[in-house]
């Protein structure tokens, strides 16, 4: 099944998402900040990246920009899950395939991931709202 990279500084969130997404059959890799996430994404080439906004070393926005700028990684859809930056992120449909406002229903995430992994790389540019 598909591979997801989950990036969030809050370990309570990454712990839950790892458990939850693995139970759904996904292969999950976790990073705690944007910089180590970029390296990890380069290594494992996931199908979707789910990232937080506020993180040390490199923010979710900076990560999405770095990915978009990379010829090898630019096709990977990036979902932003944020407690406060939702509105600002929705203005960047070029960077984020979708934006989730925390707290969001886990079922919503599953539905979104299904769409993005089934649609392949075509979800980039379509900003899906919660």
């Amino acid at each position: 099944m598909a591979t997801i990279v989950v990036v969030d500084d809050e370990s309570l969130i990454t712990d839950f998402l790892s458990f939850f997404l693995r139970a759904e059959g996904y292969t999950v890799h976790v990073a705690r900040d944007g910089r180590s996430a970029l390296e990890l994404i380069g290594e494992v080439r996931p199908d979707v990246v789910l990232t937080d906004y506020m993180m040390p070393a490199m923010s979710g926005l900076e990560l999405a920009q770095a990915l978009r700028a990379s010829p090898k990684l630019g096709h990977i859809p990036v979902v932003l899950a944020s407690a406060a930056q939702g509105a600002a992120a929705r203005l960047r449909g070029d960077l984020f395939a979708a934006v989730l406002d925390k707290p969001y229903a886990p079922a919503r995430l599953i539905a979104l991931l299904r769409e993005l992994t089934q649609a392949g790389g075509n979800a980039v540019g379509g900003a899906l709202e919660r």
Partner: protein
Amino acid sequence: MNHTLTRLTSHVPGLDTILGGGLIAGSSYIIQGRPGAGKTILANQIAFAQARQGAKILYITLLAESHDRLFQSLSMLNFYEAERVGKDITYLSLFRTLRLEGLSALVDVLRTELARQGTSMLILDGLLNARESSHSTLDVKTFVAELQGHAAFSGCTVLFLTSARIDDSSPEHTMVDGVLQLEEELIGSRTVRRLRVAKSRGSASLGGLHHYEIHDGGIVVYARLEALFARPSKADHAPDTRVSSGVADLDHRIGGGLPASSATAVVGPGGSGKTSFGLNFLRQATPEKPALHFGFYETPARLSSKARALDIDIDALIASGALTVMWNPLTENIVDALAYQLLEAVQARRVDRLVIDGLAGFARATVDEHRLIEFLAALTNQLRAIDVTTLCTWETRELSAPSLNAASPEVLSLFDNVIGMQLDEADGMIYQGMKVIKIRDSAFAPTVTKLIIPNATASDGFARPSIAGDAIES
């Protein structure tokens, strides 16, 4: 070394006052309090105030509630501005870093972030976790010292939030520049919140406990009145002029009236006429020399109707700007908050005559009864200094020396003048009588004067003779 201290404006009402001017930029502080005491609210309130002043804040949580839960709670408070989150204030969780890599790694990440973001205020929520992660007190001391050192060099102010019991011997306590302790206690049936500046290196703070409360604006601190007003803000003149008490015969007996800017206690049992005396005193207010009624008993509407029975039109006085009526019910008040409310109103309206009805309102609001004398001393001194002639009613069981002394001998000595009210019977009728017990700098005739309020109707059941001023030998 730079000797000038830059103070930060917290915009937390009352806080900068007790800190001797405010937090010192580049210094580090511990904010300590049990969960629920308000540390997180206080830290965020300060953070948003700093953000509004153009600063960049880094808010680090170790093991705490999720950030989205935090924002949800903060969004109920007026100071929270969602647009500033992620822009001026960045919230990061570094618990995993601490757990897996330890304290030094945490310091490294913080150094990088402080530089990367141009942070001028660092808030670290969860110092207790840092302490529990360490193998020795030296580790914690090193952690605090390294962080503090880096921050001081870059002019960054640090706030460490902790729920651990910090005392003078804790390693963290010795390292930081200041310690603020927030305490929430159950006293009787009330939750009482008080804070104290337990350490304040290099700056004089207002010691002891100060009440604070949390409402939708965030935290408000009320400096302990007798600490802030240890001396009145101006010199007291003790002018020679007299202010009419409202009862001509009484004025006549006490050298023309009450000494201007003095404080008078009107004492007596219930029904003896204290409130009526007060209303009659206020009746002489004008828009140029306005009055304030600061009461704890009758609501403004009831006071109005009581006054109407005495043929005193309070509503007209209010409409003309001659009178303001403020009412605080005798429920759970914070005594210092009452005092500041009173003093602010007096200043704002340039009040000349004040009636406080009654002393019990302050007495019952002092959670620590021992404070009452010092509190009243500070309040009456300040009122005198700002040229207010004050009348304060005080309900006692009976008007006798043993009864007054039993209540509190020191209280009466804080007042320049004391007038006793009592119910007397003569010619088959009951009268409200006034007895002068003490008048500052005056001789007076030690007789009881009837309280005659001109044109009062007999609606309260007490008959009054039509002739004013007959002395009743007591």
